[in-house]
């Protein structure tokens, strides 16, 4: 990221803009129907969720199973605000209010529970997301188990693109900063990094809060795009879905998470009418990847232009020989 403000910066900006314009043109021209649009929205929301969970689990090594809980906070806060005041301004307000509410809960819960190690943390976060779900099922303002419906849709390709790129950039830049290096040190060896003067609790709580914030954004986008939300949407299986994406793409690889989000969304679109087979496939994938390639398919490698150049050089060398 040292050269972020140099040539590569321009390349990235141009490629991002062209992706945006291409999809926008296809939508306007009617090549992308509403079904494909919904798939694209799901992919983008999953990218936000997976990248933020990767920050917590892949880069900092803290195993969290509570992502669906934070997502539901964002979704409900945004839905309640946009149902009361139905303007685009209120939607933006809703997204940020939802994200901040999720971050606040993440901070308050992370402070005591992040002292726990590995599996205890997993169970505590799982318990937390179940508690959040049960509270939403019992509150009046969230309309109980039936959930909220007729949420006005303000999300379109523009907003989804902006928020997805925004969160990914936020997390990538965090990882490339000295904070991010501290997090990776904690993942590699917590005691050694403490000895090097890294305040591990502070970094873990920060990462957890950022992760919750991003999950809140994803939830708000979900609520605004899919009209209705219910507590059961954000159950344990939603957290597992996100975990599968992170593990599949690689623990510690942002581009891996993005690729995995796209590939898995396509797989689940094909298997839509066989939900049991989809879950069996996911389960087998988790087991097989963990046994044969525990760091995930991409490991901690990133997909980049230089990687292609290296691969190209490798091939040309072989040809010369």
């Amino acid at each position, binding site marked *: 990221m040292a050269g972020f403000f140099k040539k590569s910066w321009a390349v990235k900006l141009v490629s991002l803009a062209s992706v945006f314009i291409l999809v926008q043109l296809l939508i306007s021209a009617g090549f992308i129907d509403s079904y494909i649009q919904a798939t694209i929205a799901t992919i983008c929301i999953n990218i936000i969720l997976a990248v933020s969970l990767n920050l917590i689990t892949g880069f900092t090594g803290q195993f969290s199973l509570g992502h669906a809980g934070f997502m539901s906070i964002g979704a409900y806060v945004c839905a309640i605000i946009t149902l009361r005041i139905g303007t685009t301004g209120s939607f933006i307000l809703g997204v940020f209010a939802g994200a901040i509410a999720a971050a606040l809960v993440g901070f308050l819960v992370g402070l005591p529970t992040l002292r726990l190690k590995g599996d205890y943390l997993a169970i505590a976060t799982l318990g937390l997301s179940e508690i959040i779900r049960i509270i939403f099922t019992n509150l009046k303002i969230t309309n109980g188990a039936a959930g909220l419906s007729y949420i006005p849709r303000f999300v379109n390709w523009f907003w989804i693109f902006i928020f997805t790129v925004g969160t990914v950039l936020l997390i990538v830049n965090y990882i490339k900063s000295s904070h991010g290096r501290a997090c990776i040190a904690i993942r590699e060896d917590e005691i050694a990094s403490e000895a090097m003067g890294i305040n591990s609790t502070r970094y873990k709580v920060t990462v957890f809060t950022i992760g919750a914030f991003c999950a809140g954004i994803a939830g708000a986008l979900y609520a605004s795009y899919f009209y209705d939300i219910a507590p059961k949407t954000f159950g344990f299986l939603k957290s597992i879905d996100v975990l599968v994406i992170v593990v599949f793409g690689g623990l510690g690889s942002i581009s891996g998470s993005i690729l995995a989000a796209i590939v898995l969304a396509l797989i689940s679109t094909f298997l839509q009418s066989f939900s049991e087979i989809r879950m069996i496939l996911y389960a087998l994938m988790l*087991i097989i990847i963990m046994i044969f390639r525990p760091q995930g398919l991409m490991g901690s490698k990133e997909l980049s232009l230089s990687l292609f150049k290296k691969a190209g050089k490798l091939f040309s060398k072989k040809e010369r020989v």
Partner: protein
Amino acid sequence: MIKIEQFLQQVFNGITLGSIYALVALGYTMVYGIIKLINFAHGGIYMIGAYVGYFCMTFLKIGFFPSLLSAMTICTLLGVTIEKIAYKPLRNATRIAALITAIGVSLFIEYGTMFFVKADVRSYPALTGLLAQKFAVGGFNVSMLQVLILVITVALMFLLQITVKKTRIGKAMRAVSLDKDAAELMGINVNSTITFTFAIGSALAGAAGVLVGIYYTSINPLMGTMPGLKAFIAAVFGGIGLIPGAMIGGYFIGMVEVMVSGYGNSMYRDAVVFGILILVLIVKPAGLLGKNTREKV
């Protein structure tokens, strides 16, 4: 005013539910004690136990006790198979990798079962004869069924205690959970000891599955998730890795759940149990009977 008979009735219901949690929690705690892995698949094994019992009683029409024994046998085989295929290759992997595998195995069992028997709720056949009777003791009702559950649980726990304390393999189990490397140097076959632990834990979970089937009479492929998590919470509450801790924790969680449903809002039942978990982890992570240990570098 809380009526005393009603309260006693609730206490008895709590003990019945608690025995089932205790049986499941024992499997969790033994596996955790020996390889430091939360065996998420344990809830799935418990569900399989319930289904095997159901098929034995409904289609094979063998009585309750033979069904209980066949459920325990099949669950033992299942537990050992899971250990051999999924967990053994990960013996030296990171904790996260093992935990993700455990989640994968649990999902695989649940949705695999759902694929074969469909997601419908099935109801257990009603018991007949002596086991179906109810009688009143000083103002509150006790069913023979509840007595049966209690007797079976206590008997199984007694057997477990004898196995762990008095037999050679029990000694090996205790040795491996204290120090795996030292145990290996002393000539203990660590792998077969771990397999044996999985076998015992799975048999107990299978028994718990059949008992919960006859007690609540309805079963479905996802029935194991929640009780599995709650049994784990029970194990953590009592001090994970400790067999008496799991028993105390199981009865405590069962009692709390029944009391919250009886005198509070039953919708918040699960939330209270998870709240207890978070509280225990913050206040005394080693659990009720556990000792705090310092982490060595």
